[in-house]
């Protein structure tokens, strides 16, 4: 019981990341009909928003303190991060909470990047084959990750989480099981809650607002909505921006779990494509469900007991599931009938 619960929890945060990326991919595919291979790069760009923010506020100015001496006799160097010079103690708080705060930075940045990407490049590819879309977005992904590499270097840059949120929560004790059996890092719990609320927000946006209603109508029948005098293209562009924001936020919050480097996006992209396919191309609930499902499956497959039976299963479980799903039920778990079924 405890082990199962622990593995279930372990799968949740990764599943959350998969679900968020897959959600964005599906949004783009459902609205614009584009297969976006650069979506992983957006996840990576979001992660680097957090990195850039932190590097900016922790930019250190060095002053010499002539009264004190360092152990080797030189005047003691006092390094003060920029944020502390500007805001004093509040700066220290800012640095401690840099990752969550950089969400505020990531939202406008990712929105602008997403819209620029759609208007600048992808809109020229609506009429062309899916193959061309794959190729051009693949090229774009290379460009984006190389730009990041040129700016931030090739090494992973670790992002500390706020001090208050380090450590683990004893989930088992909360649920009345033996204390100490099922502990779970707080940040990963937060990541799960965060991704769940983002997913909820996106669904609420699509379900409850007029804008969302129009977008859903456009997904169902783009031409009719256009004939009714609604500028559906502009709304779809905004949806692309929104998908970029979702991917970016997933990236920002993921940085304390895995130090981001420039090919983080590519690593996640392959997996999230698999997630989209398993969930069903064009189905938003399918993407979310498959994301969590595969995340949990992966964590179960990494159990030593399972690995003892089938060695290496943890490495390939997701791909294996995808292969089986594609062959048995090509439209995916929750895919609509007739959407890219061949």
């Amino acid at each position, binding site marked *: 019981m405890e082990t199962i619960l622990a593995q279930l929890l372990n799968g949740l945060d990764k599943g959350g990341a998969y679900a968020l990326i897959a959600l964005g991919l599906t949004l783009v595919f459902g609205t614009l009909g584009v297969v976006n291979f650069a979506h992983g790069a957006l996840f990576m760009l979001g992660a680097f928003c957090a990195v850039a923010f932190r590097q900016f506020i922790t930019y250190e100015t060095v002053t010499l303190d002539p009264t004190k001496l360092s152990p080797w006799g030189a005047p003691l160097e006092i390094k003060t991060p920029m944020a502390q010079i500007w805001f004093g103690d509040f700066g220290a708080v800012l640095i401690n909470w840099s990752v969550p705060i950089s969400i505020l930075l990531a939202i406008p940045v990712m929105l602008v990047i997403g819209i620029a990407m759609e208007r600048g490049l992808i809109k020229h590819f609506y009429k062309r084959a899916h193959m061309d879309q794959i190729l051009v977005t693949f090229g774009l992904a290379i460009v984006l990750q190389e730009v990041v590499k*040129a700016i931030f270097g090739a090494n992973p840059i670790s992002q500390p989480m706020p001090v208050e949120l380090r450590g683990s929560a004893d989930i088992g004790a909360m649920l009345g099981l033996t204390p100490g059996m099922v502990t779970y890092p707080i940040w990963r719990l937060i990541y799960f809650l965060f991704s769940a609320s983002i997913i909820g927000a996106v669904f609420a946006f699509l379900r409850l607002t007029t804008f969302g209603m129009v977008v859903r109508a456009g997904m169902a029948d783009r031409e009719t909505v256009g004939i009714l005098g609604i500028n559906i293209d502009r709304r779809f562009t905004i949806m692309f921006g929104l998908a970029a924001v979702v991917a970016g936020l997933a990236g920002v919050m993921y940085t304390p779990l895995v130090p981001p480097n420039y090919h983080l996006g590519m690593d996640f992209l392959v997996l999230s494509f698999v997630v989209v396919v398993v969930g069903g191309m064009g189905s938003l609930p399918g993407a979310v469900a498959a994301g969590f499902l595969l995340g949990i499956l992966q964590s179960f497959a990494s159990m030593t007991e399972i690995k003892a039976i089938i060695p290496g299963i943890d490495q390939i479980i997701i791909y294996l599931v995808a292969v089986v799903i*594609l062959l048995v039920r090509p439209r995916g778990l929750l895919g609509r009938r007739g959407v890219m079924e061949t």
Partner: protein
Amino acid sequence: MNIFYLPRRDAITLAVFALVVLTMPIWLVPFGAAYPGLMQKFAIFAIFAVGYNVLFGLTGYLSFGHAAFLGVGSYTAVWTFKLMTMNVIPAMIFAVIVSGLFALAIGFVSLRRSGIYFSILTLAFAQMCYNLAYSVLTPITNGETALQLTINDPRVLDLMFSERGAGLPSPSLLGQGMSGIEAFYVVAVVLLIAFYIAQKIFVSPFGMMLRAIKSNQTRMHYTGFNTRPYALTAFVISGMYAGLAGSLLAATDPLAGAERMQWTASGEVVLMTILGGVGTLIGPVIGAWLIKYFENIFSGFNDAMLHHTFSWLPQGAQDVVVAITSKFVGEGWQLSLGLIFVLVVVFLPGGVMEGIRRFSSIFRNRREPGPTGALKTSPAE
């Protein structure tokens, strides 16, 4: 009819191609690329791209997993070196067979879907191979350290005829060492044979069938053809080409690592084919050469060389220009590669070959309705 027959036009192409490939050590000198290691790569990746084009160019199936076959070929070749003999011919034969079998298995499953699903399936299989090579299959693949020759390898066949030497043996072809320029000529000859076979496929009824799959698979079904065996054959052939290329990589440098199977490596061969011109015979070869050339030459550039290149500019402007261009060369050469690739897909979907065609049609001053980009036709979905 002679089975080696080629139409006149293709025979001329082959002759010119042979001339170009075999004189590489001469005409590459002004480009600073006439060293054997690089020329071997030119020839090997040309084989890879030519084979990939048999699948992607003719049938339109975009595979994102061909590096897996390259890797399988490399591993098989190194194991042949280790277990049997250092001669490269058995290594090549086994690599082609084993990668062909892999391609048969993967293709059999993947080809049940087309379009983007096919791409994702091949990608999934390639990632599976890559992950397995890194983890559970470490006894076979030697994981991160890469599979290498050791002094104590069995080498059954070699040791029947000669004593175990003192040093590490190196691959050979019928007693002739495989190093430097000799190895290049061996690889070049293999490339010519591979190119010739691709030409034969292109002009054969089988090739026509593959093209028909690309232009309209549904109609093929209605006409009563089962297209899958044809597509599967094309997949296996291109997998065998990839395996051959992998075995040659191992023959010129007896080492096989899993990173050869990563999906970025699969992406590279897609880049080569698109850049050169998909669906043409020469195009993928040109694409492979361009990418390998830029990889070696661009990545060798550094700031000092850039300052030298732009020394005719005034000092301030020189620094600015160097600061900007240095992002695109050296470590950042892949940035230029990505940009070029995006530009090619956007503006020149037929790659370099279409560029040449457009260019020459300007000079001929003839307004013919030029062939539309090869990419515009997609497999029926």
